[in-house]
C-alpha cells in the first residue's frame, strides 16, 4: 500500500472493499436445500453457485427435480386456502414483518447479491435492496386494502414464479410481494446462477413466522422451471426472463387454464433531441446501459441522437466512458462489475464480434484484467438498423448509436423493433417529450431520466417484451382473478362446408360479403358456406391478412378523443334501434334491445376509463396511461350472435382499438347485417372488419399474425388453446374464455372487457426548475 505522500501525488481513489465477513460466515454455516413447507429440504443433487468476479464457488445448492417441484406445489396448495382466508390485515402484518426483517439484514443481502451476481456493491446496496424492501412495504398496504379495492376478485391460488439472475432479490420481491398480498401462495424458482439471496429470504420467512407453505423456493436450472410451468397444480405462472423462454412457456401453458404474465426482453431506445441537456443525457446513458453491466431488460441499448448534436454527443460519451471503473464488484468505487457468468460474457462478445463483422465500429474501454467474467463498456457506431447489435438484445454493457433528423424519424427508428419494453426521451421541450412519449411503443417511458423504478409504478412491456404489469394497482390485478363466467363450456363447431346444401338459400337471394376496410368484399376463396336461410362468404387467411392491413391503416381511430368515439357508438346505437325490428326477426326482441343498451353502455365508457397519476418519488409525475393495443382480433362467441358480437367489439373499439372480428360461425347473419349499421354510423373504414368462415382456422391465422397486437377468443377449448399457443410468435396477449357468458346480464358488460382492451404505458416525468 502506498504512503500518504504517494497517495497525495496520485490522488487515486485506492481500494475501498466492502467486507464479506458476515456473508461468508452465513454461507459456511448453511447447507442449502429447497425451502418447502417452511423447512429446508436437501436435494438429491447439488450444483455450485459461483462468484462471477473470481470464478470461485460460493456454495453448493440443490438441483430441483420434478418431484421437488411437486412437493412444493402440494405444500403451496395445502397452504392456499388458509392464507386466502386470512383477513387482509393479517396478511399485511406478515408482509410488513418481511419488509422490516429485510431492512434489518440489508447489508447481508447486498453483499450476498454482489458475491453471487457480480453487480457492484453500490448498486446492490443503494438500488436493489432498498427497492426490494420498498416492494414489501408497498404490498403490505395492498394486502390491507385488497378486499375493498378489488371487490369480486379472488386470488388465483398457487402461483409458480420463475425469476432471472440480473436482479435476483428485487425480482423475487416483485413476484412474491404482490402474490402474497393478493392471497396467493407461491413456488418460486430463482435462476440457477443466483439462488443465494432467495435462500436468505427463505430464512426470513421462518423468522417472520410466515405460515408454512405460503412461500416455497425450489432452486435449480431450467428443468426445474419447466417442471413448475407444466405442473397441473399451478394456477398462475409469472415469468421474467428471455423472450425465447417466454415463448416456450406460452406454448406450454396454452392448453391449460393457467393465468400467465411475462416480462421479457427489450431493445429500448434512448432518444436524444438537440435541445436536450446533453450532459444529463450522457449520464443517462451511464444509468441506462452501464447500470448492472447492461444486464437490464429495460436498458436503453439503442441511442438515437439528433444529427445536429450527434458529433458533440458521441465525443462526450466516449470521454465519459473513460472514467467508468470496471473491476471488483465489492469495491465501493466500482461502476461496472462482472457479468453473471462466462457463458453470458461469451454471448455478449459474440454479438459484438458479429456487429463489427457487419460493419459497426466498436469503441471500448480497455479490458479489465481479472479472473472473472468481465466485459468493458462499449459503444457501437456506424451501424444501421439491420445490424445484429440493433436487433438482438445483447444484455451487456454495449450500446449502439444511430442518428435521426426529425421527431418523426426518431419515432420510426425507436419503434423499429420487435420489442416494446421501455424508452427514454431527452429534451428540454415538454411538448416534444410528451408527443414522443405518446408515440413510442413501450410499456415504460422515462422523460429526461432512465431506469427509474418504484413499487407503485406499473412495469411491463408491449409487443415481444411480454404482457402483464408488475407494481402498483395494475400489478395487483395480475395476481387476482375476476369472477369467472358461470355458463356452460363452449362446444366446438365443425368447419363449414363450401359445398351447396339443399334448402339453405334465400328465396330471393340476398348477397352478404365480408366487411374489410369499410367496404364489402368477396371472399378471397370464391366460396360461400350455407347457414340457416342464407349463403355467407367462406373467409380464409388472405381475407384476414387484408383485414389486418385495413385495420392497420385505420390508426387515426386510436388518436381521436374518447368523446368522438362515444359519439360514433351512440350513433350506432341509434341506427341499430332504427332497424330493431329487422334484427329482432333474427335474434328476438330481447337480444336486440340488449344490444342497443350495450352500445350505449360502451359509448358511456369511451371517455371515462382513465389512467392514473401514481404516487412514487417526490418531484416526479408518474403517469399510467391506458393505451389501446391498436389492431386486435376478436373471436366472437357462437352464442348470442348479435349481442355477443356487439358486447365484444364495442368495448374494444370504444378504447381505441381497431378489430378484425370473426362472428358466430353458425349464425353470422346479424353481424353481417350490422355492417350496414356501421356504415351509416360514421364508424371509419377499417375500425371494424368482419370475416366469416371456419372460426378455428381464422382464429389460428389471427393468433399467428404478427400485426395483430392482442387477441380475444370466446370459443371452445380447442380454439382457446390454439389461440394461446399460436400467439407465441409475437407474444400478443390472449384473453381466451371457454365458458359461456350471460351476455344479457352483468357478465356481458364486466370491467374485464375494458382491462383487456388497453395496455398500460407508464410515463415518468421528473421536474425541477
Amino acid at each position, binding site marked *: *500500500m502506498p504512503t500518504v*505522500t504517494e497517495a497525495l501525488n496520485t490522488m487515486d*481513489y485506492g481500494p475501498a472493499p466492502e467486507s464479506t465477513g458476515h456473508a461468508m460466515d452465513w454461507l459456511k454455516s448453511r447447507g442449502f436445500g429447497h425451502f418447502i413447507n417452511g423447512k429446508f429440504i436437501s436435494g438429491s443433487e447439488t450444483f455450485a453457485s459461483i462468484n462471477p468476479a473470481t470464478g470461485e464457488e460460493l456454495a453448493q445448492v440443490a438441483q430441483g427435480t420434478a418431484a421437488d417441484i411437486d412437493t412444493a406445489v402440494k405444500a403451496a396448495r395445502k397452504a392456499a386456502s388458509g392464507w386466502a382466508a386470512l383477513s387482509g390485515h393479517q396478511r399485511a402484518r406478515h408482509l410488513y414483518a418481511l419488509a422490516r426483517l429485510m431492512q434489518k439484514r440489508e447489508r447481508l443481502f447486498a453483499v450476498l447479491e454482489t458475491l453471487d451476481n457480480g453487480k457492484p456493491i453500490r448498486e446492490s446496496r443503494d438500488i436493489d435492496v432498498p427497492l426490494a424492501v420498498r416492494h414489501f412495504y408497498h404490498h403490505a398496504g395492498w394486502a390491507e386494502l385488497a378486499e375493498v379495492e378489488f371487490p369480486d376478485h379472488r386470488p388465483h391460488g398457487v402461483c409458480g414464479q420463475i425469476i432471472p439472475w440480473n436482479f435476483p432479490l428485487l425480482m423475487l420481491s416483485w413476484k412474491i410481494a404482490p402474490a402474497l398480498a393478493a392471497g396467493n401462495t407461491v413456488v418460486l424458482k430463482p435462476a440457477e446462477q443466483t439462488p443465494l439471496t432467495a435462500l436468505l429470504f427463505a430464512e426470513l420467512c421462518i423468522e417472520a413466522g410466515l405460515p408454512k407453505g405460503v412461500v416455497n423456493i425450489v432452486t435449480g436450472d431450467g428443468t426445474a422451471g419447466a417442471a413448475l410451468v407444466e405442473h397441473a397444480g399451478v394456477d398462475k405462472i409469472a415469468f421474467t426472463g428471455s423472450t425465447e423462454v417466454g415463448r416456450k412457456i406460452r406454448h406450454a401453458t396454452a392448453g391449460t387454464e393457467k393465468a400467465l404474465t411475462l416480462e421479457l426482453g427489450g431493445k429500448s431506445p434512448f432518444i436524444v433531441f438537440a435541445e436536450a441537456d446533453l450532459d444529463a443525457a450522457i449520464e443517462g446513458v451511464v444509468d441506462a446501459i452501464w447500470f448492472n453491466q447492461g444486464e437490464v431488460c429495460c436498458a436503453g441499448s439503442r441511442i438515437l441522437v439528433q444529427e445536429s448534436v450527434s458529433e458533440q454527443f458521441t465525443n462526450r460519451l466516449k470521454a465519459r466512458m473513460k472514467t467508468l471503473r470496471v473491476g471488483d464488484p465489492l469495491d465501493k468505487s466500482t461502476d461496472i462489475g462482472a457479468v453473471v457468468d462466462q457463458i453470458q460474457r461469451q454471448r455478449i462478445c459474440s454479438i459484438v464480434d458479429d456487429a463489427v463483422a457487419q460493419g459497426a465500429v466498436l469503441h471500448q474501454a480497455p479490458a479489465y484484467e481479472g479472473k472473472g467474467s468481465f466485459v468493458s463498456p462499449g459503444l457501437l457506431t456506424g451501424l444501421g438498423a439491420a445490424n445484429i447489435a440493433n436487433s438482438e438484445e445483447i444484455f451487456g454493457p454495449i450500446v449502439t448509436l444511430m442518428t435521426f433528423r426529425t421527431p418523426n424519424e426518431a419515432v420510426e427508428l425507436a419503434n423499429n423493433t420487435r420489442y416494446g419494453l421501455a424508452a427514454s426521451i431527452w429534451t428540454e421541450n415538454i411538448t416534444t417529450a410528451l408527443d414522443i412519449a405518446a408515440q413510442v411503443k413501450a410499456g415504460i417511458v422515462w422523460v429526461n431520466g432512465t431506469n427509474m423504478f418504484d413499487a407503485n409504478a406499473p412495469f411491463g412491456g408491449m409487443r415481444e417484451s411480454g404482457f402483464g404489469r408488475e407494481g402498483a394497482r395494475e400489478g395487483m390485478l395480475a395476481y387476482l382473478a375476476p369472477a369467472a363466467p358461470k355458463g356452460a363450456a363452449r362446444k366446438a363447431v365443425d368447419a363449414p362446408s363450401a359445398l351447396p346444401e339443399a334448402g339453405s338459400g334465400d328465396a330471393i337471394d340476398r348477397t352478404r360479403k365480408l366487411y374489410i376496410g369499410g367496404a364489402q368484399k368477396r371472399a378471397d376463396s370464391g366460396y360461400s358456406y350455407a347457414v340457416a336461410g342464407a349463403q355467407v362468404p367462406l373467409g380464409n387467411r388472405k381475407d384476414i391478412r387484408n383485414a389486418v392491413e385495413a385495420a392497420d391503416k385505420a390508426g387515426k381511430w386510436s388518436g381521436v378523443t374518447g368523446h368522438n368515439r362515444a359519439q360514433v357508438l351512440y350513433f350506432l346505437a341509434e341506427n341499430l334501434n332504427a332497424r330493431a325490428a329487422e334484427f329482432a326477426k333474427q335474434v328476438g326482441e330481447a337480444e336486440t334491445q340488449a344490444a342497443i343498451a350495450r352500445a350505449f353502455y360502451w359509448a358511456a365508457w369511451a371517455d371515462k376509463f382513465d389512467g392514473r397519476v401514481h404516487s412514487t418519488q417526490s418531484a416526479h409525475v408518474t403517469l399510467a396511461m391506458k393505451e389501446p393495443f391498436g389492431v386486435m382480433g376478436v373471436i366472437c362467441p357462437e352464442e348470442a350472435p348479435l349481442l355477443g358480437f356487439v358486447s365484444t367489439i364495442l368495448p374494444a373499439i370504444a378504447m381505441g382499438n381497431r378489430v378484425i372480428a370473426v362472428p358466430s360461425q353458425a349464425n353470422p347473419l346479424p353481424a353481417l347485417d350490422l355492417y350496414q349499421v356501421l356504415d351509416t354510423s360514421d364508424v371509419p373504414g377499417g375500425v371494424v372488419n368482419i370475416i366469416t368462415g371456419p372460426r378455428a382456422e381464422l382464429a389460428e391465422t389471427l393468433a399467428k399474425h404478427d400485426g395483430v397486437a392482442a387477441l380475444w377468443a370466446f370459443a371452445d377449448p380447442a380454439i382457446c388453446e390454439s389461440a394461446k399457443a399460436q400467439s407465441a410468435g409475437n407474444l400478443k396477449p390472449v384473453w381466451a374464455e371457454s365458458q359461456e357468458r350471460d351476455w344479457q346480464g352483468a357478465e356481458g358488460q364486466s370491467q374485464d372487457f375494458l382491462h383487456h382492451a388497453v395496455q398500460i404505458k407508464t410515463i415518468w416525468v421528473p*421536474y425541477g426548475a
Partner: protein
Amino acid sequence: MHARNPGTPLTVDWFDRVQVNRPATERRANTLTTRRSVKKQFQAAWLVNAITCTDLTTLAGDDTDARVERLCAKARRPLADHIVEGLGLPDMPKTGAVCVYPTMVATAKHALSNSGIPVASVATGFPAGLMPLDMRLAEIRYAVDQGADEIDIVITRAHVFNANWTALYDEIAAMREACGAAHMKAILATGELTTLSNVYAASMVAMQAGADFIKTSTGKEPVNATLPVSLTMVRALRDYGDRTGYKIGFKPAGGIKTAKDAIAWQILMKEELGRDWLRGDLFRFGASSMLGDIERQLEHYVTGRYAASHRHAIA
C-alpha cells in the same frame, strides 16, 4: 502552471441555448459521492490535499487585525505537528490562500510573509456588489495596491436576470483589467441566480470576460455552494476549455464545513475534470470551519482515537 485565460469576445451562442436540467443534475450530484469512496491513507491524502486547496477565509463585520493574524497563523500551520509526523508528510502543508476584506489585506500580507501563501481579497462591493462601477473598480485597485495576489469579485445579478449579457461581460472585463497581475475569481452568487441555466450562462460570460476562476457564492446567500451548482459550473468551464484551450479554476464557497464535504467536492472535480483540477492553481475551497473538521479526522487516522475540537488550535 497553465497559461492564463485572456478571455474571448462575448459569444452568446456558446450558452444562450444551453438548458440545464435540474433533476438530472441533482441525480448525478447525488450519486457522485455514492459511486466513489476513499479510505485509509487515500482518505488522509485527500484531506491533506483539501487543505492545500483551501482559501482560509474570514469575511465578517467584526474582523480585526488580530483576528486576521490568528487566521494566517493557522494557514501556515493548519495541522498539529504530531499529525504531520504521523501522516509521514515531509513538510507542514499550507492552505491555498487566506481570503479577507480589502482593508485586511495588508495585515494578512504581513502575517503571511515568507510563507508563499497568497492573499486573496474580496472586492467590488462584496457581497451585494451594488455600488457604482467606478467605485467597485477602485476597490479592486486598492486591494491590489495593498498586496492582494487574488481578487474575488461579485457580479451584478440583475444583468443575469435581464439577460443583459453585454453589460455583464463589460463589467467583468473591466474588473479583470483592474486586477492586473492579480488573479480574478468571479463570484456568481448562484444561490441568488437560482436556476442552473442562469448559472451556466453567467459562468460562460465570466470566463469570456477573462475570469481565472469561477466561484459559486459569497457565503452570504440563502443557499451557498451545492454539488448540483458546482457540477453545472465545472461543466461550463470544461466547455470553455474545449472551445478555447484555456483552463479555468473553480472555487465552491459557503456552507462547506466538513471533511466529508472536502471529499465530495474533490470527487466531483476528479470525475468531471480530472487530476489537474485537484491542485490549488485550479481548485479552491472557500471555507473556514472545514479545516477544523479535517484536522480532527486526520488525528483519528493517525492516532486511532476520536478527537475533540478543543484540543486543536482554532483558526
